[in-house]
Every structure is written in C-alpha cells, then in structure tokens.
C-alpha cells in the first residue's frame, strides 16, 4: 500500500561537505537499482530519493542538503524514525547488454552505484563532481569489478574535466552497447546527443518535482504525459527523443515552466 511506514535510521554518516549517507531499516519490497523511495520527514516534507544501497532488511541513500527537508533529514540521529513508501519507478535494466558505460554526475552517482554492483558484464564507470569530497560512492565503485574513471571540475581528484567531456573521449576510443546515466540534466542531454550520433542505447534517470509518486497528480510529467514517478525515472533513447522538455525546462510546484 502506498502509505509511509515508520523506518528506523540505522546509521548516518557525513560523507562530504553537505553530503550525507543514511541506512534505514526496510521491511518492504526489495528495490532494484534505479528505483526510488519517498522519504517522509515528519513536520517537514516528503521527498523522492534514489536507493543507493540495497541489502536484506536495509536500504540506503545519499543526499545533498539542498532545502528544508534534506536539512531536517541531515539533522536526524541514528535510532530516530522516518516514514518510507515505495519502491517506485522502473529502475535500470542492463541485463540485455554486454558492455555498459555508467555515468554519474554529482549526487547522481549514488543512484548508479547499485546498478554497477549488480551488473555482470564488462563495464566502465565515469563519475564526476565539483571536487574530491563530492565524489560519492567512490570507494564502493573502486572495489567493484568495473573500470572507474574519475573527474572533478577543480582537478582535486582524477581528471580536471567535465563529466560529459570525459565521456565524449571514451565514446571515441571504445564501443559500448549502452550508456546508463544519472546526474545534472544538462550533462545527460549532452551525453544523450553524443550517443544519438553514435547510435548507442541510453538509459537516463530523470528528476522532476514530484508529489504523489503514484502517477496521479501529474506534477512530474515530461513529454506527452510521461510520469517520471511511474513511467520513469529511467527513460531510454526512444522515449527521450520525444521529450521536448528534456534538457530544456521542468515545472515548479505550481506547474509553472522553469528553464533548466
């Protein structure tokens, strides 16, 4: 049932400037990589969060403090309870592909880590952020079987370059069956355009202001009524091709268009 259930915060760790990782108890359906849960911080708000850690009886997520809800969540201690409902959305599906390029930008990295860990074929992972301490999930990725390429805007870790630039060079040098990505939409739009030219399949995890998460309120719609909460958040190249708003605009809580 789509009703928040009280879940205990088992651990909370500050992993970077304004960045936190949290693990909670979870007795619901086991999420798959790319899916999200709605996190209710009583008295503040209820917001969607990608699941970055999937274990028996526990799930985890990594978030940046960007507003009141994430601030309130960052201040909650171990042992206190939040409301969780989900998992929601479709998640990534890499099972048909043999060689995959995973791309994560900023906190978007968190949502691809679980996908990388569960993928059995050959994979390269590009992760990028503003600076070293924003490269969430770096340690987990380095201990995975994937080849990891890192970049930062300031050069404090890995290459001093934008994620999309690193991806462009990689796509020129190597061939991939699929690019899986999550991060800022401008980054994803650039990479999507590169993939179109090279006819590489794409799975991009999109973000829109979300309310109900069950496909009713229409708040998170993109393109012709595609609901990020139910039809996404992961869309493939054939769907992205139909979205005039992909990389262009989203909508605020009132439904007003906001340029990205």
């Amino acid at each position, binding site marked *: *049932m*789509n*009703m*928040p*259930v*009280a879940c205990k915060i088992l651990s909370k760790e500050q992993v970077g400037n304004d960045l936190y990782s949290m693990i909670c108890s979870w007795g619901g359906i086991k999420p798959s990589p790319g899916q999200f849960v*709605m996190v*209710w911080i*009583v*008295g*503040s*708000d*209820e*917001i969607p969060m990608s699941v970055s850690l999937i274990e028996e009886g526990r799930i985890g997520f990594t978030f940046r403090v960007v507003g009141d809800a994430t601030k309130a969540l960052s201040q909650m201690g171990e042992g206190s*309870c939040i*409301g969780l*409902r989900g998992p929601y959305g479709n998640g990534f599906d890499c099972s048909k592909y043999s060689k995959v390029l995973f791309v994560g930008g900023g906190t978007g990295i968190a949502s691809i880590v679980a996908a990388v860990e569960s993928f059995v074929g050959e994979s390269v992972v590009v992760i990028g952020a503003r600076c070293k301490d924003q490269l969430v999930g770096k340690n987990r990725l380095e201990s995975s079987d994937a080849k990891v390429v890192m970049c930062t805007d300031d050069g404090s870790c890995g290459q001093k370059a934008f994620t999309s630039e690193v991806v462009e060079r990689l796509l020129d040098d190597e061939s991939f069956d699929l690019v899986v990505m999550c991060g800022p939409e401008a980054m994803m739009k650039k990479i999507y355009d590169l993939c179109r030219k090279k006819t590489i399949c794409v799975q991009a995890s999109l973000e829109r202001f979300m*309310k*109900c*998460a*069950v*496909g*009713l*309120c*229409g*708040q998170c*719609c*993109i*393109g*012709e*009524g*595609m609901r990020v909460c139910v039809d996404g958040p992961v869309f493939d190249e054939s769907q992205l091709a139909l979205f005039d708003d992909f990389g262009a605009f989203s*909508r*605020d*809580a*009132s*439904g*007003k*268009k906001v340029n990205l």
Partner: protein
Amino acid sequence: MVDISMTVAGVHFKHPLLLASGVMDEDAGSMLRMVKGGAGGVVTKSIGMNPRSGHTNPTVVEVEGGWLNAMGLPNPGIDEYVDEIASFKNHCDVPVIGSIFGADAEQFCTLAKKMQDGNVEMLELNVSCPHAKGFGLQLGSDPELVEEIVSSVKSSVSIPVFVKLSPNVTDIVKIGAAAVDGGADGLVAINTVKAMSINVDLMAPVLSNGFGGLCGPAIRPIGVRCIYELYDALDVPLIGVGGICSGNDVLEYVMAGASLVQIGSGIANRGVDIFSCVCDEIVEWMMKNKVDSLCDLVGGAHR
C-alpha cells in the same frame, strides 16, 4: 452498434467518460496522453488567479478502498494555464471543461472569462475542495454564496456553467438547488470526502495538511447517492464522479441520474488506458442487455 455518445448542455461527447479535475491535467501533454488513453473530454486542474504551490508533501497516500489527498489547489495561475489549453487544442478536439476556483464571485468571474477566451467548451466551478483555506468548501457549503457566485459567472460568460458539489454538507440538494437558482446549467457530484489518516508509529497525521479528501472506490456509494438525490430533486444534467473504475461503476452513476462521469484516481488502479477499457465494458453490458442508447439509461434506477 450501440450508441454511447452524450450531448450535455449543447456540448457533444463521443462517450460519457471524462478526465476528472486534478488528475493528470497540469499540462497539455498529460491531458493529451489521457485522450490517447480514451478520455472523451478533459476537466482541467482547478485554476485560480495566481500561481499556487499547494501543500507540501505528503499530499497523496493510499488507504483501504481509495486515496487520501490534500494537494492544496496547486496551479500555475490562469494566465499561464490558458497556454496549456491552447497547446492541447492544437493537437486534439475533445471538449475541455475549465475548472476554476476563487475566493469570491469577482475572482470566479475573471477566471470564467479568461477560460472562455481560452476556448473551453464548458466551465466547472470548484466550490467544494475540502482542504484549501479560504476557497472551495468554505464557499460551497453556503447556499447564498453559491447562488451569488453562479449568477455572477452566468452573467459574465455564454458557455455552459457546471458547479462541482461537495458531499461534506448536511443536504447536498440544498446547495445544488442554490446553484440551479443561480442559473447553473448542470451539476457535478461529488468532490472528495473530508477525511484523515494518522501514522501511529510516527504519531502524526500522514497528510501535511492534517486532513484531506478521500477518493476512490470507498466513496462511490456516496457519490451514487448524491447523484440519485440531485436527479430526484432537480431538473439539470448531472456529471457523476467518485470511485469509478469499471463499466459497471459508470452504469451505476448513469442509472442514478448522471449523463456524464469523470474518472480520476482509477488511473492508478487500472492504468492510463482505463477510459478505453471502461468504454468497452459499457458497450459489452449494453449489447448483452440489448440497450441501444446509453442516454436511455440516464436515471433508469428511479422508480
């Protein structure tokens, strides 16, 4: 071949299933997808004078038999929203019913005129939202205020005006009669039923607004009762809404007295092509029962 088309207040609908207000209607693209899923008409999100973010989350949760919501009338404001209507109308020709809410008769009139200029076929006055302070039910439970708002709107526009009623009143017929006295061309019933749910482990109401409105199958018997009462007492076309998920549910409303119906939360239960599925179920029932025309069934349960 059976005929399931309906003509209501001079507007022709190829079948009686409309998209209800507040569900998948924040932008043109969403409404177009609902039409592809089979909707025979769309009711817009309730639109006000200015942009409103609505309540913070949680705004929608599921309960036994339905959904509890307190969206808080989020909308981008009439001036921005008419562009969505225009964009919808560029791609599709199913009738659009413009839903509006205001704080007083003057705001309702301004909104009604702007909707009419936006070429909507009909208006639905939302005087029944149970969870937005200063709007909705606070106006819609007062028969004198309802009559005043409706008669002001009627004197400002020439398109048909329907009034959406709340079940959260002692006597829905009294409010319906006031709307008809004000000149309403028809009535829509029901809006959601005021309700609340509390998470006992977190010791808090689940909705951020505390209380909200219940929709879904649990309220269908209430909606059917309201339509039945209104049909008995008043002589205007009725639109039924509340918990419709199947062809059988539509027939219930039609036999109670509804000429058209609206589907909202049923989309979560049966998917975006619910409209086509429900249409098929109505046709199947009519063929089995040798009924040629759906309009012959309107009010059929009254004896």
